[in-house]
């Protein structure tokens, strides 16, 4: 990518800081400016609390996202491919989809367990509630895009495969799966973003990670730390979506203009 494009992207990010700076200087006193936040940020970079929160949140997203992909991709491909299977499963999933993540939290706290795991150096608690809610964020975009990916494949590709002698499972393997991949990839990029959204909501109430760090900064009155949390979440979300995008593009060399 050429320098001019990077420069434009830099301007995009710098403009947030400028708007923020202006807003802080004319706005309410509870809004800390970029300078105050930056110094709080530098201080936090030396705190193990901060890094624990970063690692915990990242691992939660990674685990939930992987789970969502492992379940959502095959399920979506099957729903899109097999009408009968779709009829048995899709309506139930569509009923669950509009329930907002926050609404699942009481259910999660009441029903889902927390399991303490110790890995020698680091020990942490796996909150099934947080995992589940984060999972939901990634799961539905991946599922729906996988379904749409299959339905968007022109029927003539399957016909061509059958006329070349492919059995049904071979058609699935060589036509349905690769044909749906671009859409699945889009679903994963969107799903990664929503995983972070849901994670933070769940952590604020259920505990642990960057969500809880941000929320306790608010209840504890250290306002600049709220922004440290927000910025960290923004950066991690951006980075993880970019990673998904790059991995996806490397899997799709046949797409026109597939270079990122």
């Amino acid at each position, binding site marked *: 990518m050429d320098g001019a494009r990077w420069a434009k992207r830099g301007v995009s990010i710098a403009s947030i800081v400028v708007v923020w700076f202006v807003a802080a200087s004319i706005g309410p006193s509870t809004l800390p400016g970029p300078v105050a936040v930056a110094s709080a940020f530098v201080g936090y970079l030396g705190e193990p609390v901060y890094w624990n929160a970063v690692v915990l949140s990242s691992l939660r997203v990674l685990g939930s996202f992987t789970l969502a992909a492992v379940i959502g991709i095959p399920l979506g491909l099957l729903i899109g491919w097999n009408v009968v299977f779709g009829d048995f499963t899709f309506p139930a999933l569509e009923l669950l989809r509009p329930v907002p993540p926050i609404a699942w939290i009481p259910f999660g706290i009441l029903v889902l367990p927390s399991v303490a795991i110790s890995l020698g150096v680091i020990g942490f608690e796996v909150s099934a509630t947080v995992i589940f809610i984060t999972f939901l964020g990634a799961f539905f975009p991946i599922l729906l895009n996988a379904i749409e990916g299959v339905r968007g494949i022109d029927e003539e590709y399957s*016909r061509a495969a*059958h006329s*070349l*002698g*492919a059995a049904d499972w*071979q058609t699935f393997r060589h036509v349905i799966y690769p044909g749906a991949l671009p859409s699945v990839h889009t679903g994963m990029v969107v799903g990664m973003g929503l995983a972070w959204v849901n994670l933070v909501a769940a952590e604020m109430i259920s505990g642990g990670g960057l969500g809880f760090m941000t929320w306790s900064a608010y209840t504890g009155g250290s306002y600049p730390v709220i922004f440290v949390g927000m910025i960290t979440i923004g950066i991690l979300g951006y980075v993880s979506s970019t990673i998904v995008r790059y991995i996806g593009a490397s899997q799709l060399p046949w797409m026109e203009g597939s270079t990122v």
Partner: protein
Amino acid sequence: MSKQESDADDRAENRNQDTNGYEDIQNGHRESGSAGSERARATGEALVEINELTKTYDPDGAHVVAVEDLDLDIGDNEFVTVLGPSGCGKSTVMECIAGYLEPTEGEVLINGDPVAGPDPSRGVVFQSNRLFPWKTIGQNARFGPQMRNDVDDERIQQLLDDTGLTGFEDSYPHELSGGMQQRAELVRLLANDPEVMLMDEPFSGLDAMTKELMQEMLLDIWEEEDRTVLFITHDVAEAIFLADRVVVMTARPGQIKDVIDVDIDRPRDSSVLTSEAFNEYQERASDLIHDEAERAMEQKQQETQEA
């Protein structure tokens, strides 16, 4: 089934025929005896038999008769083109032979057996290029044999050489020109060694020059190996240039309006296109199809107004 070769007298008679008199011969069975016209290849027994084929669609309750009571036999090693206005059901006929659609009434027999779904012995080339975009040209070419674990690399290499695609094995379809994509799709089909090739306006998206080259290449391939071809087109010149027989279809409901035996020596190349005989065939076919194209257009207009 008698051979569908007619002598010059027959053709002259057909040329003068009133276009409304097509019922006599709409079944495509000429009763005239063969006068031993000069053909590069002899066609054998009927390989594909279409008997009283009717296909209706009912999308949203609208009852559309795409094809009605159509009879057509295609001989072994014969090259038949189906010429008709758009929306006349010619693709429907092909899809019934390919096994994608089941006839509403009537039957399609291959070597005497009814069609039961798609089969590698009946290869299909689609109107829009249907190379798998996610596979390289090489992977596309070996797809059919690969499904049976029976890849003959030498044969595939030979086909790629013959079609000028050597060196593009690792390219993806979108990196190739339209003509190259069509050639690659042809290679994919031939690698599978089908008995019948069903081609649905395969060259309609190509520019005139590329189209002509592709037509010549197709004829070369057909002459070289024993194959039966059903080729659908709305291009009058293309239909005549390629065919042993041109089947002219009516507007919907699709029926056979007339069958033209093309008695031009093979092997043919583009010089045929300027010959007098070719012009006569072209004129006759154009006359036949003109009214049908008008009718098809009116139908289309009516449907649009109703909708």
